[in-house]
């Protein structure tokens, strides 16, 4: 049987975090009542003229630099013509033959294997309005209602090279891209709100072939999970067609998340005949060294640099560092916490363990996490200093989630301080030894395991507060 190689390229649309739209001054605020952030320009009224928002150019350059692109100094806009009601003008203002950024890349790491994924181009364009279909489904609806609040919101479209060979590589690319867009603060990357959207071009080619197969473009991928599932589905669908001697049709398909499949999408549009031409209502944008270099100098620390710093300066394992930096808010929380503790690994353990479990359980992000970074650091310090056993630390953590009390106060209030007082522990040791002569005899007869039982008894009697290391040492000493 023929083996097939999967070839994937992603087109990602990121809404830029500007206050106003790309070509008019309407607000970009998300979630307004339908048709409330609109004006003659974004409604496509005859005679209305677009004026470019300078922040759009600023953000596009910043994203391009962070994604290792060449920044093109001469920029113009073009009209992409098509009739579809989500665009009031019957064209979208975009960039066609002179995109602002070319030839970038992102390095990804899948199961320890590093790979460079090329970025073909990044261009600036405007978002379209939103169609709400009657009956809730595009295929069965009789009519649709258009909301133009999103029409004219600035986007950058980031087009990758067809460099990915598996769903996991595509996911890693998208995760890295999202993190970079978050770090540079150009996009809020809320996939569920549509501020970061992903289309995937997927094709198969027989192993050893030199030319790519015919691709399907899958739209409507609103989550990482949808991306992975859609790729896996498409690979199986196309494989079946090819194995039965058929041919894959080049087409746009939509991901149906509820049913876990991609569906062919035929719109009334003439197939991709966009008749691009230069937008006559906008003049060119010409960049210069001063502009680009100022933005380069202002770039924040990026995920890859941050990961390198966490590993080199704080000694975190690569795995821990990669997870922490992939989420900007988590990385900031981490940086804040390590200001007041030397135990960076301790903080990482909490963030990757109990904190993440709590966040997942509550369905919230770390931005909404109530425990202050300094309090988590204090908890780590108390454990490190031996005041709390790890078991009791979890108990204190559970209490910390209920309010804003510091761990030190909670330890006192709950009476949880670990007992490290030699006299007190000796008293416990003597009591337990007196109560368990058989175990003492077993230990003396060479049964090392007996000591575990005795430690357990002491911990139980002290309600978990005795310092287990000291208990162990003193037990041994007493029984020698």
């Amino acid at each position, binding site marked *: 049987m023929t083996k097939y190689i999967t070839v994937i390229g992603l087109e990602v649309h990121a809404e830029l975090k500007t206050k106003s739209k790309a070509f008019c001054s309407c607000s970009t605020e998300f979630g307004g009542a339908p*048709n409330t952030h609109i004006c003659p320009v974004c409604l496509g009224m005859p005679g209305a003229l677009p*004026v470019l928002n300078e922040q759009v150019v600023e953000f596009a350059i910043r994203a391009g630099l962070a994604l290792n692109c060449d920044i093109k100094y001469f920029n113009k806009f073009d009209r992409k013509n098509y009739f579809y009601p989500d665009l009031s003008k019957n064209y979208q203002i975009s960039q066609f033959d002179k995109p602002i950024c070319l030839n970038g890349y992102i390095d990804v790491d899948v199961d320890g294997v590093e790979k460079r994924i090329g970025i073909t181009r990044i261009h600036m364009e405007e978002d379209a309005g939103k169609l709400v279909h009657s009956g809730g489904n*595009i295929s069965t609806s009789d009519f*649709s209602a258009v909301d133009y609040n999103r029409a004219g919101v600035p986007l950058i479209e980031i087009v990758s090279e067809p460099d990915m060979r598996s769903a996991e590589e595509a996911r890693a690319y998208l995760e890295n891209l999202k993190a970079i867009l978050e770090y540079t603060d150009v996009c809020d990357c809320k996939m569920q709100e549509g501020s970061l959207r992903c289309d995937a071009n997927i094709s198969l080619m027989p192993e050893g072939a030199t030319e790519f197969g015919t691709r399907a473009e899958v739209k409507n991928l609103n989550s990482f999970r949808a991306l992975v599932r859609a790729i896996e589905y498409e690979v199986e669908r196309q494989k079946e067609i090819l194995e039965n001697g058929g041919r894959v049709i080049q087409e746009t398909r939509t991901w149906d998340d509820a049913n876990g499949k991609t569906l062919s999408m035929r719109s009334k549009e003439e197939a991709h005949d966009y008749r691009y031409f230069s937008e006559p209502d906008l*003049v060119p944008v010409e960049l210069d060294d001063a502009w680009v270099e100022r933005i380069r100098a202002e770039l924040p620390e990026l995920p890859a640099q941050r990961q390198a710093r966490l590993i080199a300066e704080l000694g975190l394992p690569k795995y821990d560092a990669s997870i922490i930096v992939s989420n900007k808010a988590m990385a900031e929380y981490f940086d804040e916490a390590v200001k007041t503790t030397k135990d960076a690994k301790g903080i990482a353990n909490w963030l990757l363990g109990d904190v993440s479990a709590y966040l997942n359980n509550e369905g919230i992000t770390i931005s909404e996490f109530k425990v202050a970074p300094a309090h988590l650091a204090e908890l780590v310090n108390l454990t490190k200093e031996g005041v709390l056993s790890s078991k009791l630390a979890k108990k204190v953590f559970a209490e910390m989630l209920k309010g804003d009390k510091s761990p030190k106060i909670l330890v006192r209030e709950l009476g949880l301080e670990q007992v490290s007082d030699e006299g007190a522990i000796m008293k416990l040791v003597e009591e337990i030894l007196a109560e368990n002569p058989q175990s003492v005899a077993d230990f003396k007869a060479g049964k090392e395991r007996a000591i575990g039982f005795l430690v357990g008894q002491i911990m139980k009697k002290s309600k978990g507060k005795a310092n287990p290391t000291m208990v162990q040492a003193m037990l041994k000493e007493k029984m020698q």
Partner: protein
Amino acid sequence: MKVTAQDVKYIAQLSRLIVPEADLEKSTEEFNQILNYADILQKIDTTGIEPTPYVLPISNALRKDVAKEGVTHEEALLNAPEVYNDGFKVPRVIE
């Protein structure tokens, strides 16, 4: 360069224009007259000359990123032939 009546129909469709069958021959001829002129222009040697999408020596007409009120919801929908749930009602978009 010659276009056929079929090309004219297609281009009209892309632009949502209706060209009556009776006018098709005349439209095709007019199309070709325009294209013949383009043919003359295309004979000029433009090797090494950058395309000139803009003739005015102006660039960087930019606006600060400040949000302002546009028109009201009610004003905007005055232009809608039909309104549904505060939106512009449009016919079915999929075949």
